[in-house]
């Protein structure tokens, strides 16, 4: 019996297989197969899926629900607001301007905006806003310290050392502990006013306040209607001269209406009417000064 043998295996590829394999190994085709076709399939699948309106909305709803479920976890909730460093009134104001309905997710809080809003308040110098562990919105406020009372055309206001409006008071009597300044534009030269007031400390019991004249220079008002007119340049030195003169010769104790220091080379005194007549009498002069 003749044994039936299979033909010996020939591993040779056919010409067609060989060509196909070479074609597939071509770099461009290879890239297309490895990246292009998967990308195309993914793109087509997504476009087909998103072609329907209901599926699109379902996806959007799903995503927003997922987002909400994360945002509303108790770890992210803010329940109350704590304000430190602010007085009663300021804290009240802050609570008023921040439109927050607690409890609130911390994802919905824009801390930078809140801080800006708080710093926008007049009595607040600076503020830091953060979310403290335990779900507390912590607002740390540094208040402005009023150093002057400014009486102007529309009322009486408190200014801090940099001249910024702090608060409005009904009258000057509300803050008798602070010095008074007055006049148009006085709030822009608070630093100078403070310097002048520091020098005027020597006669503080007599100082009634400072007046900004013509938006360019200061007058110091004393009681008994006395007035010291200070120059634009070097008002502090001028006032020091007046005070030194006063200490040496009791200038301000005398019956003087005004000390005019506007021209440094020629300080001038204005005497009161009585004093002038008295002076004439002593010098035997008549009404016309003859």
């Amino acid at each position, binding site marked *: 019996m003749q*044994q039936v043998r299979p033909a010996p295996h*020939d*591993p*040779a*590829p056919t*010409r067609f*297989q*060989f*060509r196909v*394999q*070479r074609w597939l*190994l*071509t*770099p461009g085709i290879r890239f297309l197969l490895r990246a292009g076709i998967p990308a195309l399939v993914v793109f087509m699948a997504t476009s087909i899926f998103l072609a329907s309106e209901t599926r699109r909305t379902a996806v959007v709803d799903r995503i927003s629900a997922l987002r909400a479920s994360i945002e509303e976890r108790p770890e992210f909730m803010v329940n109350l607001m704590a304000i430190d460093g602010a007085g009663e009134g300021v804290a009240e104001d802050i609570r008023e301007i921040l439109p927050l309905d607690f409890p609130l997710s911390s994802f919905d809080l824009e801390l930078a905006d809140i801080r800006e809003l708080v710093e926008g308040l007049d009595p607040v110098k600076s503020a830091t806003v953060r979310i403290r562990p335990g779900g507390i919105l912590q607002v740390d406020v540094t208040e402005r310290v009023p150093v002057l009372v400014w009486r102007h055309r529309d009322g009486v206001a408190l200014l801090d050392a940099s001249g910024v409006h702090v608060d409005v008071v009904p009258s000057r009597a509300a803050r008798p502990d602070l010095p008074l300044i007055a006049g148009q534009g006085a709030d822009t030269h608070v630093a100078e006013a403070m310097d002048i007031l520091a020098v005027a400390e020597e006669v503080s019991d007599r100082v009634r306040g400072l007046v900004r004249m013509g938006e360019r220079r200061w007058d110091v008002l004393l009681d008994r209607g006395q007035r010291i007119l200070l120059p634009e340049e070097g008002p502090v030195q001028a006032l020091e001269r007046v005070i030194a003169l006063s200490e040496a010769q009791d200038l301000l104790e005398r019956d003087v209406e005004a000390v005019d220091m506007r021209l440094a080379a020629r300080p001038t005194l204005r005497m009161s009417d009585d004093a002038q007549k008295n002076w004439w009498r002593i010098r035997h002069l008549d009404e016309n000064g003859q």
Partner: protein
Amino acid sequence: MTDLYQSQRAMRQMRRLAMQRGVVAILDVGSSKIACLVLRFDGTGRLSEDNSIGSLAGQTGFRVVGAATTRSRGVQFGEINAMQETERAIRTALQAAQKMAEIRVDHVIACFSGAGPRSYGLDARVELEGQVVTENEIARVLAACEVPDYGAGREVLHAQPVNFALDHRSGLADPRGQLGQELAVDLHMLTVDATAVQNLAHCIKRCDLELAGIASSSYMSGVSALVEDEQELGAACIDMGGGATGLSIFMKKHMIYADTVRMGGDHVTGDISMGLGVPMAKAEWIKTMHGGVHATGMDDREMIEIGGDTGDWEHDRRTVSRAELIGIMRPRVEEILEEVRSRLDAAGFDHLPSQQIVLTGGASQIPGLDGLASRILGQQVRLGRPLRVHGLPQAATGPGFAGAVGLSLFAAHPQDEWWDFEIPVDRYPARSLKRAVRWFKDNW
């Protein structure tokens, strides 16, 4: 002469293109196997920091990214005798190598062992036109070589200038830029049967590939199996393949002689097959597992089952002693080596200062071959393996891959051949036409 020149130049151009693409396939078409390597060229080879050539002998310009071997079909004595079969075998090897390399290869450099190579030594001598040896002068002296009548139907495979002499100074490797009066050159030319080359080219073309070079496999084995000093001082490399045994003689790093003996390992297998009455595949297996060339007393007692599948119990349980097997193999191996000896003698190898002989190729793995070879070929015989190259798989580092590895080295650093130089201007055929045109212009 010119069309050969043109086709070789075209192949050089292909090789340059392949280098630009950075990928080239190496194809060793042998009688017993077809090996294919895919090389990737990644920049020029650099020496290591200490300026030594390192463990890879400086061959670092390329990397083997794919390797495949397949049983050869349709190749006998190193020549293609069944085109379809060979084409299929080449396709198999190429496909597997491409698959391993994951890259498409368009250019192939091939080598084969058969086709009756014949070596010619040519020389020429010219007076220099100027004082300095220029590229053009070298082309001129090469063109002045007296080409012998190597017969119709043969083609020049290699034509390498191996030595330049300038006036009375000989042994110049590169005379360009030197001063002198008279330039002489020695050229080694190797011709093979044109049909074998055309068949191979046709097979490769049928595989949609471009032939970027073609080389003799005995030369390539010498390039990879001989170490540098052997190439420099003179040595012969004997590549014992399946159907043919190639031999090449090297001197001063140039091949100066190559020849082929049309016998190889397949003939040993055939002898075993006939002597023991077993099929070729079984004979090959017996040769590989139990073969040898030196019988000892122990071998009389070592019995080898040679089997069979006739169903006859007696026939299928045949055994032979290893001594008998050796008795069959040894005369044939001796015959091959004797033939090699006679070819070497004919080439005048015994006049060379160094008598080093290196055996490589698949059939050199027969145990005890070095002892037998030293008895026939002389004392300085060693077994050679190919150089190490980057990325060569372990399976392809055996002596059977000497040709393929040598071809990789050759692809990376080819020897200057005749056709690498421009044809001198006065030999150029277009010149006469140009002259005629000028004559017309001048006279009309």
